[in-house]
């Protein structure tokens, strides 16, 4: 008998019900952030198809200000900035997504083991993660980039390392708080083994924080990639990327070509705004304080 594997998805929590019960501010955050994120998703999937020009083609006059033909102007190599930045979503966000995925899986495995089993394993992992947590995660990202070298996958891996201590702690404390609940003790009395308990009774809690964790991770990740790009350590040229484009645009700022800095920055801003709003709104919606009446 499968032991009720369907139960994970037939969750007791109905999203629509929760959304309706949430305060107006949270609802707006979810909607607004969601719309922004949806736009970004469209850029990621359909980017190359919807942009007016080839992002790599140096067909235009260089350093043109925004106009009707070049919506956001052109860069110093004659490439249309708007097309570049839209397609760059794939790289700036795509890498972030991979990084979030990897760090989430590792954080989940280590955090749940540490929280559930405790003991020496927990103490060792906590010491290790606490040590990592002392420094800003960006430092680890930089170290990994230097070690691994340039490239898309390398960047993704570097950023994921930076996020692991945070995910580890999050999952670990969640696991510990659930582990002490009464219904877990009831499971042991019924004769359930550890694996059954984790799979059917602790996992739903992980899922409830999944969306928020991903959104937040995407925000941080995007910022990290842009930061790397800005430092010249990100994706190698000529791949369009918001941070790299912003960095190269810096040189032209003083001569009045503001669009080369403002628009890449704007894309980063919109991405960050979208993810942060969505994650904060979702957090409030998924964790109501007055959940039931009785």
């Amino acid at each position, binding site marked *: 008998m499968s032991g009720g594997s369907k139960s994970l998805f037939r969750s007791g929590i109905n999203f629509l019900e929760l959304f*309706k*019960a949430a305060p107006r501010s949270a609802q707006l955050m979810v909607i607004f952030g969601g719309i922004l994120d949806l736009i970004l998703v469209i850029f990621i999937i359909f980017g190359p198809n919807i942009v007016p020009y080839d992002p790599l083609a140096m067909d235009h006059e260089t350093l043109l200000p925004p106009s009707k033909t070049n919506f956001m102007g052109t860069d110093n190599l004659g490439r249309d900035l708007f097309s570049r930045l839209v397609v760059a979503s794939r790289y700036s966000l795509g890498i972030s997504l991979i990084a979030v995925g990897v760090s989430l899986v590792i954080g989940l495995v280590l955090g749940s083991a540490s929280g559930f089993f405790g003991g020496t394993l927990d103490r060792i992992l906590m010491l290790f993660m606490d040590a990592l947590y002392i420094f800003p995660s960006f430092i680890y990202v930089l170290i990994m980039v230097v070690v691994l070298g340039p490239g898309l996958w390398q960047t993704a891996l570097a950023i994921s390392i930076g996020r692991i201590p945070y995910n580890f702690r999050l999952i670990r404390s969640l696991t510990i708080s659930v582990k002490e609940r009464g219904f877990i003790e009831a499971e042991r009395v019924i004769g359930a083994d550890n694996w059954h308990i984790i799979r059917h009774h602790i996992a739903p809690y992980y899922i409830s924080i999944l969306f928020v964790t991903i959104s937040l991770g995407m925000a941080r990740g995007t910022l990290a990639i842009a930061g790397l790009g800005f430092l010249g350590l990100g994706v190698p040229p000529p791949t369009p990327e918001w941070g790299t484009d912003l960095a190269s645009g810096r040189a032209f700022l003083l001569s009045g070509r503001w669009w080369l800095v403002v628009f890449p920055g704007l894309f980063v801003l919109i991405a960050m705004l979208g993810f942060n709003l969505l994650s904060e709104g979702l957090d409030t919606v998924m964790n109501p304080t*007055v959940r039931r*009446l*009785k």
Partner: protein
Amino acid sequence: MSLLKVNNLKTHFFTPFGTVRAVDDISFEMESSVALGLAGESGCGKTTAAYSLMNLVPLPGRIVGGQINFKGKNIVEYNETQLRDIRWKEISMVFQGAMASLNPLYTIGDQISEPIIYHEDADKKEGWKRAEELLELVGIEAARVDNYPWELSGGMRQRAMIAMALACNPSLLIADEPTTALDVIVSAQVMDLIKNLRKKLDLSMLLITHDISVIAQTCDELAIMYAGKLVEKTDVPTIFKTPLHPYSNALIKAFPNIKGKKKKLSSIPGSPIDLIAPPLGCRFAPRCPFAQPLCLEDEPILDQIEKNHFVACHFWEDIQSKR
């Protein structure tokens, strides 16, 4: 003039799931120097009624109708300043679960003297002296006035709360489940203390509890609430001898006895109702062994059948005669 006269009090909670009619039109009167027990199960509205008396109903609730006449004045209409004048000075409260109600950052001396300093314009020295006196009154050594709440045991914290409630010599003391969180023996000692204090200070008391036995031992009158309504009110000896409302009867008989012969008791079927959409008619009808078709359609009003006996039941006479 009676000390407290409540007329048609209604307190509702406005939640996203609907309006919870926690207290739905209750009326009763209380004289000075009397101890009235307000009994009922969780969700019946007794705690909300108590908080309404001090106009302290937490959001999303508020008093939506009726009057609370305290010493002749309707305090439902009072503004915050007027309310502040009577809170603690005239009406004070001992809350359930003393640990949650005492501030862990301040000594109990601070907490007891605070209302005294505020209401009676006393200075800190006088306030503390009074605090020490009050502690002695409730059976805690005066030296403990410097203690923090976590340094006291559960029973002592409850006593400290009682001292705090008596700080400004109120006319009415409301005690909300004062012994629920306590062990049997400590709880008995606290109730004993309350009884003695009442005698000593000639204090009027409203005791809120689900435990009828406690009311039997300490109160003069008893009012029973069910699903936001008052179903019966009379003096204690009468209600234990001849409970008229079927719910009162069932509630009184629901306690396994320790003295006398062992009896098999019968339970009340069903469960308490939903206060968002209460049924038409008598709210107890779905669980009442004597329910008739009329009970499901027509809500009984609280009838005064004797000077101090009120019942809300269509068929109390028939039920009475059959017993």
